[in-house]
């Protein structure tokens, strides 16, 4: 054991690299006039869940349009190019999981 002035000194096992704080995308003040993105992870019923949420949002806000994208597998990240194309088409997006 390492002793320094009768102290036991140990090392930390965690990742200490500094990736900086996670930054949230700016939130719109209203969804009126916005294009709503629906991002499915391909879990069974995820698209149905997203549609239900979208229908409820449409009852409250004047949604301009909806854009749908299914990333193909819940086990892998979305294709970066396809995800960017999706993001460029919408103002806000909802990502869902379901079973």
């Amino acid at each position, binding site marked *: *054991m390492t002793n320094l002035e*009768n102290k*036991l000194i140990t*090392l930390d*096992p*965690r*990742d200490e690299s500094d990736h900086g704080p996670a930054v949230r995308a700016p939130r719109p003040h209203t969804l009126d006039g916005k294009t709503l993105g629906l991002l499915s992870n391909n879990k069974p019923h995820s698209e149905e869940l997203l549609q239900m949420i979208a229908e409820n949002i449409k009852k409250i806000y004047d949604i301009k349009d909806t854009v749908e994208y299914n990333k193909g597998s819940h*086990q892998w990240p979305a294709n970066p190019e396809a995800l960017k194309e999706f993001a460029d088409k919408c103002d806000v997006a909802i990502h869902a999981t379901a079973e």
Partner: protein
Amino acid sequence: MTSPNLTSLQHQFADWEQVQEYYLAANLTDGLPIVPPTETRVQAMLEYSGLAPDQVIGFESIRQKQITAEKVAINAVMAGCRPEYFPVVTSAISACCEPVFNLHASSTSTNGVTVMVLVSGEYAQEIGMNSSTGLMGPSNHANASIGRAVNLVKTNFYGSVPQEMDNSTFGHPGKYTFCFAENLEAGIWPSLAMDKGFDNHSSTVTAVAAYSPLQVSVFGGKDPDAFLLGIAHAMIGLGPSISEVFVALSPEVMKYVDDAGWSRRQVQEFLWEKARLPAKEWISWRRVEHPDRFPDKDQLVGCVADPDRITVFAAGGAAGVYVDVIGSWGNSRPVTRKIEVRS
């Protein structure tokens, strides 16, 4: 405060008990006591392998995690590893960082998945690993601490902490440790290391995102085309279209296969063929996530896609006629690495 050469944050404690209390409270253990990761112990681990503290062992691209030798060594010390085990730990971590392994998803899934560490070759014997009686159970220091080290890296460094990033519904006993060695003496075919393309002097580690092992008994006959059918039925229990299956034959079962003159390839092809069912069967059992992907409901669908995805090897003790079937999760592919030992 940091140590010379080592850059990790230091903690000071009055005694061993305080160390345990801190690491347990900070969720930096698997719930069991750890060996205090002192600078001396961590340096010994690194020196055995000739690794600099900042040497990158692996980079996991989804979470952008660069895993250094220093951090692997700290966790290996905590797990109780001796320095001579460290080359196995670093090779296993390197394997887990291969994109096809999909460490991120297998570490977060609601499925019960752990990293199985399967060692092949003479290095397993050199460090005293158990490949015989009780090899998947407790008491062997190398098996226990190597598997534990890999899991501690996964939780402490990678962040796959149960009930946080790890959302496994049931968990998995192997999330404490799941590491063993191939039984070379009982094997009748080339070692797994050679089967995976390495030379006969190489030792390897294969990392598998593994489900729980399912043990199958063999009674009343030594004919492979009968008892392997029982193994194929056990594979069906794993479901359709899983990534790979590992089939551990006990020495006595391996002898039956040898006496019957079956090759490894024959066993693989037999199991693959017999572990297929019409899509409609799988669907009726609610084992298919997307039934619409099988327009032909009479199409035969296998537990695995092809015979190459079935790894067959010898393991376990001389007494007992058993086979262990271990599935590889989801779309994660097992990865084999050579164990690099400094001469």
